[in-house]
Structures are given as C-alpha cells and as structure tokens.
C-alpha cells in the first residue's frame, strides 16, 4: 500500500507525449521573392530576386525583369554581377521617378511570374530647416547641431514619412596648371539622434534608456519612420541632433589641389505608403530580436505587396533641404588632408 502512488505518479510523468502534426502548408513549395526600393532621389534602382523556400533562399538568376512606368514606358532591368552585399540576384535599371508615377515591376522566371505595383506618393514638404549649435552633453568641446526641420502635411490624407540625414562635401578641384577646375561631390548617409523628438518616437516601444531589464532589446525606430497623427493637415517641427563632425569629410580620391570646399547637411524627408511604413516597423522588430520567431516575443507580420510571390517593393518620394555648414565652425582638418594652395 505504501508504494501505491508510484504507478499514478509515473503515469502522469511518463504519459506526456510528443507527436508530429502535418502542417499542410506546402513544405518547400518554391515562391518567387522580389524586393526593391524605388526612390525619386535616385536614378539607379535595383530589384533583388530570390526563390523563397521553407527554410532557405535561393538566388534567381536568368529572370526577365520588366519595369513599366505609368502603363506605357517599359524598361528592361539588366542582371548585375553577384554582389556580396546582397544575398540575392540583382537586376538594375535606370529611371527618374517623380511623385504620382505608377510603377509595375514584373519578374518572370520560367513558369514563375510575380509582379508588384506601386505609386509614388505626393511628398510631404520641407518648409524650412533651422539649426542650433549645442555642446554635446557630457562631451566638453564637442559640438552638436540640432536640426529643426519644419514640415507641412498634405491635407486630407494620412501621410507616412521617414527622415534621414546625409553629409555632402562639395569640392572645387584645380585639375591643371591653366586653372581648369573640377567639381566633385561626395554624399553619404550620416547618423543622427531622433530619440527625443515626440513625433518620430510616437508609438515606439520602450527602448534604450528604459529602466526595464530588457528595455534595450525593445524595438526602436531605426529608420525614423513616423506618421502625421500628431500634426494632421498642419505643420510640425522635427528635432534631430547630430555631431558637427558628421558633416565634415576631408577625403577626396584625387590629388588635385582643393580651391573651394563646402560642407552641407542634407535633410531628406521620404514620403511613403502606409504599407511601407508598416514594413519598416516590422524590420525594427526583426532587428531588435533577430529575424527568427521567438517564444517570448510577439510574432511580427510582414507586409507583402508582390502578387504571385512574396516580398516588398517600396516607392518613396523625397523632399530635401541642404544646409551649408558655416566655414567658421569647421575645425581645421588634419595636416595630411590640408588643401594644397601653393602658398605653403
């Protein structure tokens, strides 16, 4: 009698079983995956094709990619050499898109055919950009710029935007003894801090700086995407900060003497569709916790606007403003970058 409990205990502990369920989700049925980013501020565009399988991606070489603009103009995208940057097959084309354009991209590979249709939205405009120079807190002697970008919403519709900043270095180089000049520009994305802006951080989860144990893991807003919820049909001012050094670059690929040099901060405001806004927020989630589903993280649904396949083709209309950084504030460059003026 004393050991009568043993069978019952053992029964419960050992009876738990594991069994497989047939998912019936078409294991490994290949699907064409198409991704592309189309922007009005760029003329060279790339379509990235893959074949999506259950657990991996395959390259999709040898496809025909056609771009149709406004139903009439057809452009054939040409395959590019493998690029280590992309884990996909690249098809590139040149086009100068503008707001209101309707673009359809068709990708055909054997029997597989997928397409996406996107419209370039009217842009939310930049009214003005003011700057305030402040000393970076905790960094004595390091100067930071606060860019106060006033933007104007498009009335009557919901708008979705993201903001970026770029550094533009413009050089006038003397290419010959006779005073020939060459204009050269170097423009690239630069980092900035938008975490204190109420519009850009609107609706963003607890993130870095939070007292929560895993607060730093919470998805942030890496691409500074925002809605016009807080300034619908009106104006608002976005406040972002960046250190002065972000806009200074002394490097040129040429050894010609530099006759003039100007540094600009470029504020770019991209207007996008609601779906693209959600796509960017989904990417934020992926970047916070990795790209695989996790038990303690709510699943993230990923928008797809590709018919006959999956993927996302985005279309962004860009508005930009250039701010010339005052020469008086530009620190002296290192000696080895100092321009050759002939006076030394």
């Amino acid at each position: 009698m004393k050991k009568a409990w043993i069978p019952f205990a053992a029964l419960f502990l050992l009876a738990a079983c594991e069994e497989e369920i047939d998912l019936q989700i078409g294991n490994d049925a290949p699907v064409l995956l198409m991704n592309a980013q189309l922007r009005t501020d760029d003329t060279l565009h790339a379509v990235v094709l893959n074949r999506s399988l259950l657990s991996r991606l395959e390259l999709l070489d040898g496809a025909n990619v056609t771009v149709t603009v406004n139903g009439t103009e057809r452009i054939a995208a040409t395959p590019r050499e493998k690029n280590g940057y992309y884990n996909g097959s690249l098809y590139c084309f040149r086009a100068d898109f503008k707001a209101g354009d309707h673009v359809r991209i068709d990708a055909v590979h054997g029997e597989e055919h997928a397409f996406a249709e996107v419209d370039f939205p009217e842009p939310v405009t930049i009214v003005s950009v003011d700057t305030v120079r402040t000393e970076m807190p905790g960094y004595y002697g390091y100067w930071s710029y606060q860019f106060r970008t006033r933007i104007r919403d498009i009335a009557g519709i919901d708008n979705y935007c993201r903001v970026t900043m770029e550094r533009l270095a413009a050089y006038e180089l003397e290419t010959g003894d006779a005073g020939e000049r060459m204009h050269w520009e170097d423009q690239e994305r630069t980092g900035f801090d938008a975490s204190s802006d109420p519009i850009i951080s609107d609706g963003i989860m607890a993130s870095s700086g939070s007292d929560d144990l895993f607060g730093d893991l919470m998805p942030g807003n890496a691409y500074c995407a925002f809605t016009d919820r807080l300034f619908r049909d009106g104006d608002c001012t976005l406040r972002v900060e960046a250190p002065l050094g972000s806009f200074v670059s002394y490097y040129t690929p040429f050894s010609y003497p530099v006759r003039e040099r100007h540094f600009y901060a470029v504020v770019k405001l991209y207007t996008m569709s609601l779906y693209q806004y959600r796509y960017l927020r989904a990417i934020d989630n992926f970047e916070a916790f990795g790209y695989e589903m996790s038990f303690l993280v709510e699943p993230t649904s990923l928008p797809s606007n590709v018919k006959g396949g999956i993927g996302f083709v985005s279309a962004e209309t860009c508005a930009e403003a250039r701010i010339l950084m005052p020469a008086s504030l530009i620190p002296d460059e290192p000696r080895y970058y100092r321009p050759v003026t002939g006076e030394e």
Partner: protein
Amino acid sequence: MRKWICAGAALLAVLSAAAQPRGTATVSGYITDLSSSETLIGAGVLLDNGARVPVGAVTNPYGYYTLTIPKGDVRLQFSYVGYESQMRRFSLQRDTVINITLAPSEVLSESRIVASKDAGIQSTYLGAIEVPLAQIQNTPVIFGEADVLKAIQMMPGVQGGTEGTAGLYVRGGGPDENLILMDGVPIYNVDHMLGLFSVFQPEAVKKVTLYKGSFPARYGGRVSSIIDIRTNDGNMKETHGSFGLGVVSQKFHLEGPILKDKLSYSLSARGMHTAIFAPVIKALMPKGEYANYFFYDLTGKLSWRLSDNDRFFLGAYSGRDKFGLHFDDAAEGHTSSLEGGDPYRSTNRSDMDLHWGNDVASLRWNHLFSNRLFANTTVSFNRYKMHMGSVTLDRTVMEKGTRTVSYDIGYRSGIRDWSGKIDFDYVPMPDHLVKFGAEYIYHTFIPETLTILDSETDYDGVTRNDHLEFGNTKKGYYGHDISLYVEDDISVGDRLSVNPGVHMALFLTDGKPYWGFQPRLSAKYAFFDGFSCKAGYARMAQYVHLLCSAQVSLPIDLWVPITRDIRPVTSDQYSAGFYYDGLKGWEFSVEGYYKDMRNILEYKDGTLVIASSKDWEKNVEMGQGRAMGVEFFAQKTAGKLTGWLAYTLAKSERRFPDGTINMGEWFPYKYDRRHSVDLSVNYAITRNIEANATWSFASGGTTTLYTRTTAVLDPEGSLEEADFVAHRNNYRLPPSHRLNLGISFHHPHRRWGEGIWNLSVYNVYNRMNPNFVYLRYESVRDPETREFETHLIMSKITLLPILPAISYTFKF
C-alpha cells in the same frame, strides 16, 4: 453614512406601503435546507390559484424571498431543484413572514419556477445559466478532481483555453474579461497548476451562476462574463464534514454550529504537494537538482443569525501555488592545470521559486428593513500577488581565504482591492422587483518590479554590495472604482417580463475620470405553454486589464489599470433566443449573440512579453473585437438521468487599426473555435451507484507560424533572411476532443456517514490533444534526387493523455 442609508430605507418603506395595492399583502421569509439550515438560492415560491401563468417569486442570493399577493385564502408552493416541495395553505390578512425549510430529495425532481428568477430558462435574462452543483461534483475531470470552472467550460458559448486547463473564454472574449466573484468579491487568479485546477473547492460552494448575455445591471467591471459563486454558510443544526484522498490532492471540509441556529462555521481545505512524489522527481532530474510544487486552498466562513432581520457573514479565502527549483553543485581542483597550482574547493547553490495566489476577506451584513426591502452590505479585501525569486550563492575556498558571491533576484507584481458595497432588493409592487445599490473599490496595482541584490566578499574579506532595480519604481498605481446601479424586473401582464437597468460607473485613475453609462435591457415573452423568446442588450465596461502574450499564458501575466492613454474596454452585446421547457424535466434553448468590443489590449508585434512593464502602455495597442455565434442547449434537469448537450457555432476576431498588430487587418482570435460540442450525462444506476460521462469537441484554436523564409530589404540596402509570417494566428490547430468517464460508489454507514469511491478515466480513448506546439526543421534526403529537402515540422506536446484516477471521500 449609515444615517443616510437608514433614512433612504425608511423612505422606501413608506413609499412601498403607499405603493402596495389595496387588498394585497406581502409574504416574505427565508427558505433553508431542513438538515443544515443552509439558505437556498433561487428557490421558488408559487401562488397556486389556478391562473394560466401563476404568480411567484424566488429567493435572492441570500435565500430571502418576498411575494405580494391578494389577501384571502392562499396556497403557496415552496420548491427547489433536488428538494421535496412543500405546500402551505393559510388565510392571508396582513403582511406575513414565513420561513420555510425544505428536505432534500434523493432523485432530482423538477421545479418549475416562473417568476423573477436570476438565471436559467425561466429568468428574464439571456445567457444566464445556473450550473447544477450536482453536475459540478459528479463531472469526471482530470485526476478525478471535481472543478467548478471545468464544469462551466462545458456550457454553450464558453471555451477552455489550453487543453485541460481551467481558462475561460466566453463568447469570444479574453481570459481577463470574466468577473469571477466569490460571495460577491472578485478573484483575480483562479488557477492552480497553470490552470489544471481552479481555486474553487466544490465542497465549499453552494451556487454557481454564469451570466454571458444580457447582464443584470448589478454586475459590472468585465465585458464577457460574470461568474457568481456563492459559498456555504455552514450547518446551523449539526456538525458535518468530509475528507477526501485523491491521486493529486487531499481535501477536507467541516461545518457545523457554534451556537445552534445562531452561529455556524464552514471550513474547507485542499492541498497538494509533490513531496510524496519526491523519489520519482529526484530519479528523473539530474544529480544535484530537485524541483517541487505545492498548492493549497483554505476557505472559511462564519455565519451569525443575530435576528430574523439581521444576519452577518465573515468569509475568508487564501490560496497559493509555489514552484521551487534547487541546484547544488561542488567542484575541487587547482587554479592552474599544472601541478602546484593553488587548490580550491567551490560550491554553488541556487534556489529558485515562483509563487502566486489570492487572499480574500469579506464581511457581509444582511438586513431586512421591511418585508419588501432587503439589504446586503459587504466590505472586503482582496489581494493577488506573484513573486519569482532566485537566490544564488557561489563559495570558493582557497588557502588565501574564502570568496563568496551571492545574487538575490526578486520579480514581483500584484493587485490589491479594498471595497465596500451595498445592494438592495425592493418590491414596491407585486409586478416589480427593483434591485439597486452602490459599490466603491479602491484598487492598488503593484507593478512589475525586478530587484537584484548582488553581494561579493573577496578573499581579503572586503565586501561589496550592489542593489539594482528595474521596471516600475512606483510603489503602486491607484484606481477609484465607483458604481451605482438600478434594475427593475417588471411583469407586464401574464406573458411579458422586462428588465431594464442601468449601471453607472466612474473610474478615477491618474487624475483622469472615466465615466461609464451602461444601459441594460432584457425582455421575455411567453408564447404558450413552455415556449418563450427573449431579447436583450447590454453595454459593459472594464477598467482593469491582464497583459498576456498571444502565445503563452503565465502566472507572471500582469494586471494593469486603465490610464490616461489606455481607455476602458467597452462592449455592446445584442442577443436573442428561443426557449422551450414544456416537456417535463427538459429545457431547450437556442440563443444567438453579436458582441462588439472596443479598446481591447494586445501586445504589439515584436514585443518582449516579460520584464517590460516600465512603459507598458507603449508596448500595447488598443483595438476592436467582434464575436458572434449561435448556441444550442438541451438540458435534462430531473430524473435518474440528468445532463446536457450544448453546441456552439462561433466566430471571434480582432483588429488593431493603428497597424502595429497584424498590419491593422482583422485576424482570428487565438481561441476562435468555430464549433464546439459538450455532452454531460449523469445516471443514477442504483441508489448507491452513479455513472458520469462527458464528451467535448472543439475546433482547433489558432496560432502563428512562419510559413517560409523571406528576405527583408531595409532602407540602407541590407538584405536579411527572416521568417515570413503573413498574418497573426495564421494557422488553425487540429480539433481536440475527449471522453471522460466516472463512476461513484456510495457506501452509507449506519452510524458514521458515507464513504464514496470514485473511479474516473480522463481522455478515455487517449486522444492526443495539444497542450503546446512548436516548430522545428527536419532535413530529409530525397531517395531519387539524393538531395536534401527541408521540412517544417510542428510538434505538439500532449500532457494529458489517458489518465485514470481514483479518489475516496468520506462524508460524515
């Protein structure tokens, strides 16, 4: 305050005297059990005057009835399901008090009650069901443990959560949308063993009523259901009790008089500890590790009949679950692999525990201001708390000294309520039963906090202490919850009864008031003998939320209040139905509903669901829900064979328009189950042998699966592989069903009482219903192409296959 109440009551008494029609008088009193003096809730009083539709009344939740009828010779029938009816004939000349005692019947007899019943087919309300206590006690469930909430899960429109657990999802609502009241006091956590058992001990329960449709105006605070559980008052005549030994738990119940017919007590205890399985657990776990678990429930009540007009009840409940995990490790060696290194000896000890539970205390006062005005006043305290802790001690002993490092980690949350309420039952005229009252609840939400105490004593004896705190640093969030209600059950002629009501609420939090005007309306029309139809509307509001993951449900799920930014959940429910009880001993109903919910909360896509409460409002989204369905219910209420068959066709969806969840599109709720069937049968084979069977079927719930690999292209041009999920809850799990059987053998002892052996089998045909599911990849080589193909496999874990159980209960 008391002055105002008395003045108001006196005014009502005067008004009622004035309102009473000439030539009528009021009969009132308590109806109690003959052997125990336990008040009977919902017992009927019927004026047998040969009318086509007889006049009657029922007892309220405190066993009190009042009936105003014409003076003269009257015949009153007093009846209650499972009791012998009594007929009283007398000449009624003035207001009269008649307290009645009814004797239990061995076979369930039919009791047809026509008036003002609070629940059931005869009541004016829709979706109001009295869950038969006999059915709760006899329904075979897991490990042979009778369970109140498991019996409720078998009602139409009610779904269980994870297989075998006590979760409740009523008419498409969430787990926090059910107000579960124990003697009128809300219970926040109702689960033991992650939901395998509920905290309610059937021996301590007297009445269970489920409301899921046109809610009475006296209830508020949740949007999907009200489960009103009333506990035993205690035997006023003699001492009785029971003890039970089961496979998992042991239980004990004792009740009796302290002062006969004046003061009684009722005490119930139940507990389970894995200590009795210790050898098995140790054998299954790695050396140096040990796990244990226990839970207990303690329910007690003192009932004091001060006079015919005043009764007091002091009730208390305490319940806990505790899970512990212990690690012990030791090592010896040298600091260097080379001989000659310093020898050391290190020990590591770690204790982790997770415990959670409720404490409830309440004091009630029943007072009769007049035979037509009854008042119940309740003050109560209610607390739910959860604590997860871990203590780790590392100790390294070397020649140069001893180094000790300890970590003490604590993670806690909870909720605490103080409340006071007063309820009145008032019969101003024969055709009206007015209920009105007020309630005030002071909520303290103890938010999730995590503290880490880190202490290190180095070899040189120097000690360093660190104290880190994460999560909410506020000691609490507070809410003032004030509500008033009034409802009137009106009989309009013989056939029509209407119950209009309104529940008004004010919730004050963070300095912001939320006003809630919640109209309720139920109407019933009796066509002809036995056939009736009902229609109803109810608006409900909810001021507290349970933050829980869409994927897992844990005791660490967090109760949070509404705030400045998080608005109350509100719902509008429309329901209508047809009913038939013209066949003796049978009840049939078909009821349809449509429920619209607003401001329901869910974690946003990509949220980490633990330890993220600091800015929890940013992590959740308010959205909308809609649920609709049709419920068919056939119940046999009398005879040797009793039970019911319920079928529900239902749909429940959610949408979060801001787009942070499922891109703002509608998606099926996690427990959106299209079809569910529940059959429950009790059969008294002989006087001493009862057989029970239940069969349940439910369409599969939903879960979110990635269905392939995709690539995301970020604005910087980086392409990353990712799991592709097109929609939340995109996969429907297979249906679950099971048959449970039980048989009880009663052995009456002439002197001592009765022994009951219960044999039961849970999941008789061993259906592998899933408790948990997870995904994994499996590579299989194609025999023809010799290439590997990857398959996505979903595995389900079934914790509850066929489980026989035996239990013994001795009643004395």
